[in-house]
């Protein structure tokens, strides 16, 4: 097994799975294109071939040298060095929560809409980053929410997700109605 560790085998398996899954899916669109000899599959299959080659090369490197960085490599970030060391269960749970919360927020955008989901998202993120003072949490949440509404709703008129489930949709409609009434005011 040389210097190969279980983590290397898992890493290699993930990459090989990506190659296999994508290769299998190329048969979904394996149709000729009249004006182009290589068709729709030519380019992706070449890239998958390259990916397979370099994945095997990476495994070979790990077999010989383990996880050690290659000498003379340029522009390596120091994140991996910092990732070493022990982590408590509480910290792991916190990291999982930080990774999961934005994803849940993205999932909630369609049903609940930007206008409703955003303040809750801000509060969760502030809490996950360790802030516990209620006055600060509330005031910063309101400040960020107001800033985003001002910039994207009032200045840019950006069409943000409104939600498609009541009462969230009604809340978005209320905010947008307020905005249009405000914009109709002749402040000048």
């Amino acid at each position, binding site marked *: 097994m040389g210097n190969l560790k279980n983590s290397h085998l898992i890493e290699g398996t993930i990459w090989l799975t990506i190659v296999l899954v994508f290769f299998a*899916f190329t048969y979904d669109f394996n149709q000729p294109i009249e*004006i182009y000899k290589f068709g729709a599959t030519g380019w992706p299959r070449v890239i998958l071939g*390259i990916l397979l080659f370099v994945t095997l090369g990476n495994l070979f490197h790990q077999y010989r040298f383990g996880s050690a960085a*290659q000498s003379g490599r340029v522009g*390596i970030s120091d994140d991996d060095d910092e990732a070493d060391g022990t982590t408590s269960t509480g910290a792991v749970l916190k990291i999982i929560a930080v990774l999961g919360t934005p994803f849940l927020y993205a999932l909630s955008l369609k049903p609940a809409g930007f206008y409703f989901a955003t303040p809750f998202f801000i509060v969760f993120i502030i809490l996950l980053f360790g802030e516990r003072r209620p006055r600060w949490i509330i005031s910063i949440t309101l400040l960020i929410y107001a800033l985003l509404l001002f910039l994207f709703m009032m200045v840019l008129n950006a069409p943000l997700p409104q939600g498609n489930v009541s009462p969230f949709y009604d809340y978005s409609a209320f905010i947008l109605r307020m905005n249009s009434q405000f914009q109709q005011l002749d402040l000048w």
Partner: protein
Amino acid sequence: MIENFLLGSSALFGDPYTLAIFVFGVLGGMLFGAIPGVSMLTLAAILLPFTASLTPAQGVMLFAVIYCTGTYGGAITAILFNIPGAPENAPTAFDGYPMTRKGLAGKAVGAAVLCSAIGGVASALVMMAATEPLAKWAIRNIGPPEIFALVFFGLAVASSVGGRTIWKGWMSVALGLIIATIGQDPVGGIDRFNFGFSDLAAGIAFVPAILGFFAVSEIFVQAEKTARGRYEAPPVNMEFPSFFELWQQKIAVIRSVFVGFFCGILPGIGATLAAFMGYGEAVRWSKNKESFGKGNIEGVISSETANNAATGAAMIPLLALGLPGGALTAMMVAVFQMHDLEPGPLVFYNSPDLIWVVFAAMFYANLSILFIGILETKTILYLLKIPFQFLAPLILLLASIGSYIGRGLVLDVMVMFGAGIIGFLLRRSGYSIPGIVLGIILGKIGEQNFAQGMQMVHYDLFDYLSRPVCLILIIAGTLTLASGLHKAFKANPA
């Protein structure tokens, strides 16, 4: 040329309304360039309908000014928060953000201000002098085969930067390339890898991917540090780079001006590849290669000089040939058309006043980066004093909105967070995030130009390599890859 330039300048400064539009463009470009996801393109798209009420010179000039200052604006967030305002600022973050973490944000932003201005001014001067002859050369010598060869070379260089081993550098680029194949194929329009999601037919947009891989993964890295009690706020230092420090980088600046200008001329390539190649060349020629990615000021200088040098060059195919090189120059074509004008060689004869107002405005816009940039930098650096627990939700939300408003798809927000999680995990395992991003950006361009190039040479490799520019770039790229492979098999742990 000088006479025309003075005439253009007097038309710009002589009319208060034109001057007001110029100032608006300068400030608007900088501001929108600095908001992640909401790039100068957003501002340009908002303003497009309003240009109908402007004169053609004012309309085109406004867009040209936004292009110059917007390209610089994205560097600020790239340096301070690892969030490139636009794809062309991505390489600026490689060394700019580590400088911020070391307490050298002032130096990094100062270098970006100065070098953006130098790159832009140099590019504007060359543009004024050489638009017509350069355009003639480019149309004769540059086509899809050459663009593919340049993409190949760019990717070969990118794989040598970042990644704990060369294999991981290549795997990162290949991952980016395979992500870029999601969506319709560029020749036959056949859906690929949509996995049953109709929204994926349009492919993975690169703005959400970039925001995810850079900004969101950075938040996750900081969250991990906070959870493990290792987070330290970056020290704020207002010190600008000294004249001596900048003088030491003169070769990097000159090289990046050339790289940026060459990439900028090529339609569809533009400032993004210019910035990556400017950075890659800086690494290649440096005696201190290992310091790149850890806060080397030369990385910031090379990237920012090259991307701004590309802005003037991008006007060359637009004005001389009517070929837009990117999204913003395509919008400029729309401005021309709204006024019943067609960009191309005839514009030089029919509307020389328009051309020289635009040239003069681009020159002064790049100069204004220097003055306004220095003034605003000290204010902007105070952003670093905001506690990270309050900054994190703001960054995540700006990135979410930036991802969403491009195409109005919630899927893009999910893609961004997905890219953030993948980026977070890959960074820990020693993969190269810049490599993935460049693969995504160049994948589609590369495939499209490969297909067109192959059709042009009737699938004959010898015919392809008989084109001198192709031959040089393919040999250079192959040598880069071969040298990497040689090192990989001889590799010794650092």
